[in-house]
Protein backbone atom coordinates (compact mmCIF):
# COMPACT_ATOMS: atom_id res chain seq x y z
CA UNK A 1 0.00 0.00 0.00
CA UNK A 2 1.25 3.46 -0.91
CA UNK A 3 1.43 5.68 2.17
CA UNK A 4 -0.10 9.13 2.03
CA UNK A 5 1.25 12.49 3.09
CA UNK A 6 -1.05 14.10 5.63
CA UNK A 7 -1.00 17.69 6.87
CA UNK A 8 -3.40 18.66 9.62
CA UNK A 9 -3.75 20.53 12.88
CA UNK A 10 -4.60 18.56 16.00
CA UNK A 11 -5.07 20.35 19.32
CA UNK A 12 -3.45 23.50 17.92
CA UNK A 13 -0.35 21.61 16.81
CA UNK A 14 0.60 21.28 13.13
CA UNK A 15 1.42 17.73 12.00
CA UNK A 16 3.04 16.47 8.82
CA UNK A 17 2.68 12.72 8.72
CA UNK A 18 3.24 9.81 6.39
CA UNK A 19 0.52 7.22 7.07
CA UNK A 20 -1.10 4.08 5.67
CA UNK A 21 -3.96 4.89 3.28
CA UNK A 22 -6.45 2.64 5.08
CA UNK A 23 -5.97 4.16 8.52
CA UNK A 24 -9.03 5.62 10.21
CA UNK A 25 -8.77 9.00 11.92
CA UNK A 26 -9.33 7.09 15.18
CA UNK A 27 -6.28 4.85 14.48
CA UNK A 28 -4.21 7.88 13.57
CA UNK A 29 -5.00 9.55 16.90
CA UNK A 30 -4.57 6.49 19.10
CA UNK A 31 -1.94 4.37 17.38
CA UNK A 32 0.25 6.95 15.64
CA UNK A 33 -0.02 9.96 17.95
CA UNK A 34 -0.70 8.25 21.28
CA UNK A 35 -3.73 10.44 21.94
CA UNK A 36 -5.52 7.76 23.94
CA UNK A 37 -8.32 9.97 25.26
CA UNK A 38 -10.34 9.18 22.14
CA UNK A 39 -11.94 5.76 22.72
CA UNK A 40 -13.06 3.04 20.35
CA UNK A 41 -16.39 1.61 21.43
CA UNK A 42 -18.45 0.02 18.69
CA UNK A 43 -16.35 0.97 15.65
CA UNK A 44 -19.49 1.43 13.52
CA UNK A 45 -20.69 4.91 14.44
CA UNK A 46 -23.33 3.96 16.97
CA UNK A 47 -21.77 4.76 20.34
CA UNK A 48 -19.94 8.07 19.91
CA UNK A 49 -17.01 7.11 22.17
CA UNK A 50 -14.62 8.08 19.35
CA UNK A 51 -16.18 11.54 18.85
CA UNK A 52 -13.73 14.33 18.00
CA UNK A 53 -14.33 17.85 16.68
CA UNK A 54 -13.24 18.23 13.07
CA UNK A 55 -13.51 21.66 11.45
CA UNK A 56 -15.94 22.78 14.15
CA UNK A 57 -18.25 19.78 13.93
CA UNK A 58 -18.42 16.52 15.84
CA UNK A 59 -17.58 13.39 13.85
CA UNK A 60 -17.15 9.74 14.71
CA UNK A 61 -13.42 9.31 14.17
CA UNK A 62 -14.04 5.60 13.45
CA UNK A 63 -15.98 6.66 10.33
CA UNK A 64 -13.43 9.07 8.86
CA UNK A 65 -10.42 7.88 6.91
CA UNK A 66 -7.23 9.60 8.03
CA UNK A 67 -6.77 10.90 4.49
CA UNK A 68 -10.12 12.64 4.69
CA UNK A 69 -8.74 14.78 7.51
CA UNK A 70 -6.26 16.39 5.08
CA UNK A 71 -5.87 20.08 6.09
CA UNK A 72 -8.46 19.66 8.86
CA UNK A 73 -8.46 21.32 12.26
CA UNK A 74 -9.14 18.70 14.91
CA UNK A 75 -9.74 18.82 18.63
CA UNK A 76 -9.62 15.77 20.85
CA UNK A 77 -10.28 15.66 24.58
CA UNK A 78 -6.55 16.29 25.17
CA UNK A 79 -6.84 19.67 23.44
CA UNK A 80 -9.67 21.48 25.14
CA UNK A 81 -8.00 22.64 28.34
CA UNK A 82 -7.04 26.29 28.71
CA UNK A 83 -3.53 27.53 28.08
CA UNK A 84 -2.51 27.02 31.70
CA UNK A 85 -3.80 23.43 31.39
CA UNK A 86 -6.76 24.29 33.62
CA UNK A 87 -9.81 22.14 32.95
CA UNK A 88 -12.34 23.28 30.40
CA UNK A 89 -15.54 24.46 32.16
CA UNK A 90 -17.38 21.42 30.73
CA UNK A 91 -14.77 19.08 32.21
CA UNK A 92 -15.01 20.87 35.57
CA UNK A 93 -18.80 20.69 35.48
CA UNK A 94 -18.69 16.92 34.73
CA UNK A 95 -16.61 16.44 37.88
CA UNK A 96 -18.76 18.74 39.98
CA UNK A 97 -22.00 17.00 38.97
CA UNK A 98 -20.61 13.46 39.19
CA UNK A 99 -21.29 12.95 35.49
CA UNK A 100 -18.49 10.40 35.15
CA UNK A 101 -18.91 6.77 36.18
CA UNK A 102 -16.77 4.33 34.21
CA UNK A 103 -15.54 7.24 32.08
CA UNK A 104 -15.45 5.48 28.73
CA UNK A 105 -18.07 7.71 27.12
CA UNK A 106 -16.80 10.87 28.82
CA UNK A 107 -14.33 12.25 26.23
CA UNK A 108 -16.85 11.89 23.40
CA UNK A 109 -19.67 13.18 25.57
CA UNK A 110 -17.65 16.28 26.53
CA UNK A 111 -16.72 17.00 22.91
CA UNK A 112 -20.36 16.69 21.82
CA UNK A 113 -21.27 19.05 24.66
CA UNK A 114 -18.53 21.48 23.55
CA UNK A 115 -19.71 21.48 19.93
CA UNK A 116 -23.25 22.08 21.17
CA UNK A 117 -22.30 24.99 23.43
CA UNK A 118 -20.02 26.50 20.77
CA UNK A 119 -23.04 26.79 18.44
CA UNK A 120 -25.77 27.24 21.03
CA UNK A 121 -24.46 28.69 24.32
CA UNK A 122 -27.77 28.44 26.20
CA UNK A 123 -29.44 25.19 25.10
CA UNK A 124 -32.72 23.85 26.48
CA UNK A 125 -32.77 20.37 28.05
CA UNK A 126 -34.27 19.04 24.80
CA UNK A 127 -31.44 20.61 22.80
CA UNK A 128 -28.88 19.09 25.17
CA UNK A 129 -30.47 15.66 24.72
CA UNK A 130 -30.37 16.13 20.95
CA UNK A 131 -26.77 17.35 21.16
CA UNK A 132 -25.57 14.23 22.99
CA UNK A 133 -27.92 11.83 21.17
CA UNK A 134 -24.98 10.33 19.29
CA UNK A 135 -23.16 9.39 22.51
CA UNK A 136 -24.10 6.33 24.52
CA UNK A 137 -23.44 6.09 28.26
CA UNK A 138 -23.75 2.44 29.27
CA UNK A 139 -23.65 3.43 32.95
CA UNK A 140 -26.83 5.36 32.03
CA UNK A 141 -25.73 8.45 33.93
CA UNK A 142 -27.53 10.75 31.53
CA UNK A 143 -29.24 12.88 34.17
CA UNK A 144 -25.93 13.99 35.69
CA UNK A 145 -24.46 14.53 32.24
CA UNK A 146 -27.34 16.82 31.25
CA UNK A 147 -27.01 18.69 34.55
CA UNK A 148 -23.27 19.08 34.00
CA UNK A 149 -23.83 20.58 30.53
CA UNK A 150 -26.42 22.97 31.98
CA UNK A 151 -23.94 23.97 34.70
CA UNK A 152 -21.17 24.48 32.14
CA UNK A 153 -23.47 26.66 30.01
CA UNK A 154 -24.22 28.71 33.10
CA UNK A 155 -20.52 29.09 33.99
CA UNK A 156 -19.52 29.98 30.43
CA UNK A 157 -22.06 32.82 30.13
Amino acid at each position, binding site marked *: *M*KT*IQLNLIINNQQYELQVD*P*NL*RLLDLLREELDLLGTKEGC*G*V*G*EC*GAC*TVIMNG*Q*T*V*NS*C*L*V*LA*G*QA*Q*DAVIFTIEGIQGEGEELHPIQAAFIEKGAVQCGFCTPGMIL*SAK*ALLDHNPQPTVEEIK*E*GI*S*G*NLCRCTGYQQIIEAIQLAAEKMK
Partner: protein
Amino acid sequence: MREFEFLHPESVTEVLDLLETYGDRVKIIAGGTDLIIELREDEGPENLEFVVNIAHLEELNYIRQDAEKIYIGSGTTHSQLAQSSLIKEKIPALAIAANSVGSPQIRNRGTVGGNILNASPAADTVPVLIALDAQLRFKSTAGERTVPLHDIYIKPYKTNISSQELLVEVAFNKLSRSASSSFIKLGRRNALAISRMNVAVILDQDSDGVITDLRIAPGSTTPVPSRIKIAEEVLLGQKPTPELIKISGEKVSEEMINLSGYRWSTDYKKPVIETLTRRAIQEALEGRG
Protein backbone atom coordinates in the same frame (compact mmCIF):
# COMPACT_ATOMS: atom_id res chain seq x y z
CA MET B 1 -9.51 -3.25 7.21
CA ARG B 2 -9.31 -3.77 3.43
CA GLU B 3 -6.16 -2.51 1.72
CA PHE B 4 -6.46 0.19 -0.92
CA GLU B 5 -4.81 3.31 -2.28
CA PHE B 6 -6.33 6.57 -1.07
CA LEU B 7 -6.75 9.31 -3.67
CA HIS B 8 -7.63 12.92 -2.89
CA PRO B 9 -8.54 14.68 -6.16
CA GLU B 10 -8.85 18.46 -6.23
CA SER B 11 -11.85 18.74 -8.57
CA VAL B 12 -14.85 16.90 -10.03
CA THR B 13 -13.03 16.79 -13.38
CA GLU B 14 -10.18 14.93 -11.73
CA VAL B 15 -12.65 12.50 -10.11
CA LEU B 16 -14.21 11.77 -13.51
CA ASP B 17 -10.78 11.05 -15.01
CA LEU B 18 -10.05 8.61 -12.18
CA LEU B 19 -13.41 6.90 -12.70
CA GLU B 20 -12.71 6.57 -16.42
CA THR B 21 -9.25 5.15 -15.82
CA TYR B 22 -9.99 2.77 -12.97
CA GLY B 23 -13.74 2.04 -13.35
CA ASP B 24 -15.04 -0.51 -10.87
CA ARG B 25 -11.68 -0.76 -9.11
CA VAL B 26 -12.69 2.56 -7.47
CA LYS B 27 -14.99 3.24 -4.58
CA ILE B 28 -16.02 6.85 -4.08
CA ILE B 29 -15.98 7.98 -0.45
CA ALA B 30 -17.97 11.00 0.73
CA GLY B 31 -19.26 10.83 4.32
CA GLY B 32 -17.97 7.28 4.64
CA THR B 33 -20.57 6.38 7.27
CA ASP B 34 -21.56 3.24 5.35
CA LEU B 35 -18.44 2.54 3.29
CA ILE B 36 -15.88 2.51 6.11
CA ILE B 37 -17.92 -0.08 8.00
CA GLU B 38 -17.98 -2.30 4.89
CA LEU B 39 -14.25 -1.94 4.31
CA ARG B 40 -13.47 -2.58 7.94
CA GLU B 41 -15.48 -5.79 7.88
CA ASP B 42 -13.47 -6.82 4.80
CA GLU B 43 -16.55 -6.46 2.64
CA GLY B 44 -17.15 -4.21 -0.35
CA PRO B 45 -16.28 -4.76 -4.02
CA GLU B 46 -13.92 -7.68 -4.64
CA ASN B 47 -11.64 -5.82 -7.05
CA LEU B 48 -11.38 -2.63 -4.99
CA GLU B 49 -7.99 -0.93 -5.40
CA PHE B 50 -8.67 2.77 -4.95
CA VAL B 51 -10.76 4.83 -2.57
CA VAL B 52 -11.40 8.28 -4.05
CA ASN B 53 -12.32 11.01 -1.60
CA ILE B 54 -14.93 13.60 -2.60
CA ALA B 55 -15.97 14.81 0.88
CA HIS B 56 -13.83 17.94 0.59
CA LEU B 57 -15.06 19.07 -2.85
CA GLU B 58 -16.86 22.37 -2.36
CA GLU B 59 -18.28 22.24 -5.90
CA LEU B 60 -20.52 19.35 -4.78
CA ASN B 61 -21.70 21.15 -1.66
CA TYR B 62 -24.57 23.62 -2.18
CA ILE B 63 -28.30 24.19 -1.88
CA ARG B 64 -29.62 26.58 -4.54
CA GLN B 65 -32.91 27.61 -6.07
CA ASP B 66 -34.26 29.31 -9.14
CA ALA B 67 -37.87 30.19 -9.95
CA GLU B 68 -38.88 26.57 -10.61
CA LYS B 69 -36.51 24.23 -8.86
CA ILE B 70 -34.32 23.50 -5.87
CA TYR B 71 -30.86 22.05 -6.56
CA ILE B 72 -28.84 20.16 -3.96
CA GLY B 73 -25.19 19.23 -4.52
CA SER B 74 -24.58 15.52 -3.91
CA GLY B 75 -21.96 16.30 -1.26
CA THR B 76 -24.41 18.25 0.90
CA THR B 77 -24.51 16.71 4.38
CA HIS B 78 -27.64 15.74 6.28
CA SER B 79 -26.80 18.46 8.84
CA GLN B 80 -26.69 21.09 6.10
CA LEU B 81 -30.02 19.87 4.69
CA ALA B 82 -31.64 19.81 8.13
CA GLN B 83 -30.42 23.33 8.94
CA SER B 84 -31.03 24.96 5.55
CA SER B 85 -33.61 27.74 5.86
CA LEU B 86 -34.56 27.21 2.21
CA ILE B 87 -35.29 23.49 2.74
CA LYS B 88 -37.07 24.12 6.06
CA GLU B 89 -39.31 26.69 4.40
CA LYS B 90 -40.00 25.03 1.04
CA ILE B 91 -39.99 21.34 1.89
CA PRO B 92 -39.93 20.78 5.64
CA ALA B 93 -40.36 17.00 5.28
CA LEU B 94 -36.89 16.82 3.71
CA ALA B 95 -35.34 18.72 6.62
CA ILE B 96 -37.15 16.44 9.09
CA ALA B 97 -36.01 13.31 7.23
CA ALA B 98 -32.41 14.54 7.06
CA ASN B 99 -32.52 15.34 10.76
CA SER B 100 -33.74 11.85 11.61
CA VAL B 101 -30.65 10.17 10.11
CA GLY B 102 -28.32 8.58 12.67
CA SER B 103 -26.88 11.06 15.13
CA PRO B 104 -25.34 14.56 14.95
CA GLN B 105 -21.96 12.97 14.21
CA ILE B 106 -23.39 10.87 11.36
CA ARG B 107 -25.37 13.80 9.95
CA ASN B 108 -22.25 15.97 9.96
CA ARG B 109 -20.54 13.50 7.62
CA GLY B 110 -23.19 11.54 5.70
CA THR B 111 -24.28 13.14 2.42
CA VAL B 112 -27.51 13.14 0.46
CA GLY B 113 -25.66 11.59 -2.50
CA GLY B 114 -24.49 8.74 -0.30
CA ASN B 115 -27.93 8.24 1.17
CA ILE B 116 -29.33 7.88 -2.37
CA LEU B 117 -26.62 5.68 -3.90
CA ASN B 118 -26.02 3.36 -0.96
CA ALA B 119 -29.57 2.27 -1.88
CA SER B 120 -30.51 1.09 1.60
CA PRO B 121 -34.27 0.48 1.76
CA ALA B 122 -34.22 2.32 5.09
CA ALA B 123 -32.66 5.52 3.69
CA ASP B 124 -34.49 8.43 5.28
CA THR B 125 -34.16 11.15 2.65
CA VAL B 126 -35.08 8.86 -0.25
CA PRO B 127 -38.87 8.60 0.35
CA VAL B 128 -39.15 12.40 0.48
CA LEU B 129 -37.08 12.75 -2.70
CA ILE B 130 -39.21 10.06 -4.37
CA ALA B 131 -42.35 11.97 -3.36
CA LEU B 132 -40.75 15.09 -4.87
CA ASP B 133 -40.15 13.19 -8.16
CA ALA B 134 -36.49 14.21 -7.80
CA GLN B 135 -34.09 14.06 -10.73
CA LEU B 136 -30.42 13.07 -10.40
CA ARG B 137 -27.64 14.61 -12.47
CA PHE B 138 -24.66 12.36 -13.20
CA LYS B 139 -21.37 13.34 -14.78
CA SER B 140 -18.74 11.24 -16.51
CA THR B 141 -15.93 12.01 -18.94
CA ALA B 142 -18.48 11.22 -21.69
CA GLY B 143 -20.73 14.09 -20.57
CA GLU B 144 -23.72 14.29 -18.28
CA ARG B 145 -27.23 12.93 -18.01
CA THR B 146 -30.28 13.46 -15.85
CA VAL B 147 -32.26 10.48 -14.55
CA PRO B 148 -35.38 10.26 -12.36
CA LEU B 149 -34.38 9.02 -8.90
CA HIS B 150 -37.14 6.48 -9.21
CA ASP B 151 -35.39 4.76 -12.14
CA ILE B 152 -32.02 3.96 -10.56
CA TYR B 153 -32.95 1.26 -8.07
CA ILE B 154 -32.76 -2.43 -9.03
CA LYS B 155 -33.06 -4.00 -5.61
CA PRO B 156 -31.98 -3.17 -2.06
CA TYR B 157 -28.36 -1.90 -2.08
CA LYS B 158 -28.19 -2.15 -5.90
CA THR B 159 -28.53 0.62 -8.50
CA ASN B 160 -28.05 0.65 -12.28
CA ILE B 161 -25.51 3.49 -12.16
CA SER B 162 -22.24 2.76 -13.98
CA SER B 163 -18.92 2.89 -12.14
CA GLN B 164 -17.82 5.66 -14.53
CA GLU B 165 -20.49 8.07 -13.34
CA LEU B 166 -20.46 10.53 -10.47
CA LEU B 167 -23.70 11.80 -8.92
CA VAL B 168 -23.32 15.56 -8.76
CA GLU B 169 -26.79 16.94 -8.04
CA VAL B 170 -30.32 16.21 -6.90
CA ALA B 171 -33.04 18.57 -8.16
CA PHE B 172 -36.79 18.79 -7.84
CA ASN B 173 -39.60 21.18 -8.75
CA LYS B 174 -40.73 23.58 -6.07
CA LEU B 175 -44.14 22.85 -4.62
CA SER B 176 -47.01 25.30 -4.85
CA ARG B 177 -47.38 27.69 -1.93
CA SER B 178 -50.42 25.87 -0.60
CA ALA B 179 -48.74 22.44 -0.61
CA SER B 180 -47.53 20.79 2.58
CA SER B 181 -45.32 17.83 3.35
CA SER B 182 -44.73 15.36 6.14
CA PHE B 183 -42.27 12.61 7.03
CA ILE B 184 -42.78 10.02 9.74
CA LYS B 185 -40.24 7.43 10.76
CA LEU B 186 -40.62 4.47 13.01
CA GLY B 187 -37.34 3.41 14.62
CA ARG B 188 -36.47 1.53 17.78
CA ARG B 189 -35.63 4.80 19.50
CA ASN B 190 -35.35 8.46 18.54
CA ALA B 191 -31.59 8.74 18.04
CA LEU B 192 -29.33 6.43 16.03
CA ALA B 193 -32.21 4.34 14.81
CA ILE B 194 -32.35 2.81 11.38
CA SER B 195 -35.87 3.16 10.02
CA ARG B 196 -37.99 0.05 10.47
CA MET B 197 -40.39 1.84 8.16
CA ASN B 198 -41.00 5.44 7.18
CA VAL B 199 -43.29 7.37 4.91
CA ALA B 200 -43.25 10.74 3.15
CA VAL B 201 -46.39 12.56 2.03
CA ILE B 202 -46.78 15.67 -0.12
CA LEU B 203 -50.23 17.10 -0.43
CA ASP B 204 -52.02 20.08 -1.94
CA GLN B 205 -55.64 21.21 -1.66
CA ASP B 206 -57.70 23.79 -3.49
CA SER B 207 -59.63 26.50 -1.66
CA ASP B 208 -62.58 24.13 -1.17
CA GLY B 209 -60.36 21.56 0.54
CA VAL B 210 -60.35 19.15 -2.41
CA ILE B 211 -57.03 17.31 -2.71
CA THR B 212 -55.41 18.37 -5.98
CA ASP B 213 -52.00 16.74 -5.53
CA LEU B 214 -50.99 13.80 -3.37
CA ARG B 215 -47.79 11.78 -3.30
CA ILE B 216 -47.27 8.94 -0.89
CA ALA B 217 -43.80 7.36 -0.74
CA PRO B 218 -43.06 4.77 1.95
CA GLY B 219 -39.59 3.49 2.84
CA SER B 220 -38.59 -0.09 3.78
CA THR B 221 -41.94 -1.16 2.37
CA THR B 222 -41.55 -2.09 -1.29
CA PRO B 223 -38.52 -3.79 -2.94
CA VAL B 224 -37.45 -0.48 -4.50
CA PRO B 225 -38.65 2.93 -3.35
CA SER B 226 -41.72 4.15 -5.17
CA ARG B 227 -44.81 6.31 -4.91
CA ILE B 228 -47.94 4.26 -4.24
CA LYS B 229 -50.31 5.52 -6.91
CA ILE B 230 -53.27 3.32 -5.90
CA ALA B 231 -53.14 4.87 -2.43
CA GLU B 232 -52.88 8.40 -3.84
CA GLU B 233 -55.88 7.86 -6.15
CA VAL B 234 -58.16 7.15 -3.19
CA LEU B 235 -57.90 10.77 -2.08
CA LEU B 236 -57.11 12.66 -5.29
CA GLY B 237 -60.02 14.89 -6.30
CA GLN B 238 -61.74 14.21 -2.97
CA LYS B 239 -62.25 16.12 0.22
CA PRO B 240 -60.36 14.11 2.83
CA THR B 241 -62.40 12.13 5.36
CA PRO B 242 -61.08 9.79 8.08
CA GLU B 243 -62.57 6.87 6.13
CA LEU B 244 -60.77 7.79 2.87
CA ILE B 245 -57.50 8.39 4.70
CA LYS B 246 -57.81 4.96 6.30
CA ILE B 247 -58.48 3.31 2.92
CA SER B 248 -55.48 5.11 1.45
CA GLY B 249 -53.27 3.62 4.18
CA GLU B 250 -54.70 0.17 3.47
CA LYS B 251 -53.85 0.57 -0.21
CA VAL B 252 -50.20 1.09 0.75
CA SER B 253 -50.09 -2.21 2.63
CA GLU B 254 -52.00 -3.90 -0.20
CA GLU B 255 -49.33 -2.73 -2.65
CA MET B 256 -46.56 -3.80 -0.24
CA ILE B 257 -47.96 -7.33 -0.13
CA ASN B 258 -48.52 -7.35 -3.92
CA LEU B 259 -44.89 -6.46 -4.57
CA SER B 260 -43.08 -8.21 -1.72
CA GLY B 261 -45.36 -11.16 -1.01
CA TYR B 262 -46.64 -12.19 2.41
CA ARG B 263 -43.54 -12.55 4.57
CA TRP B 264 -42.75 -13.40 8.18
CA SER B 265 -42.71 -9.67 8.95
CA THR B 266 -45.97 -8.82 7.19
CA ASP B 267 -48.22 -9.27 10.24
CA TYR B 268 -46.19 -6.51 11.85
CA LYS B 269 -45.55 -4.30 8.85
CA LYS B 270 -49.11 -4.23 7.51
CA PRO B 271 -50.82 -2.43 10.40
CA VAL B 272 -47.71 -0.28 11.02
CA ILE B 273 -47.43 1.10 7.49
CA GLU B 274 -51.20 1.68 7.40
CA THR B 275 -50.99 3.70 10.59
CA LEU B 276 -47.85 5.62 9.55
CA THR B 277 -49.46 6.53 6.22
CA ARG B 278 -52.67 7.68 7.91
CA ARG B 279 -50.71 9.83 10.38
CA ALA B 280 -48.47 11.28 7.67
CA ILE B 281 -51.51 12.28 5.58
CA GLN B 282 -53.13 13.84 8.64
CA GLU B 283 -49.96 15.73 9.50
CA ALA B 284 -49.67 17.05 5.96
CA LEU B 285 -53.33 18.08 6.07
CA GLU B 286 -52.71 20.01 9.24
CA GLY B 287 -49.77 21.64 7.48
CA ARG B 288 -47.56 20.75 10.41
CA GLY B 289 -44.82 19.00 8.43
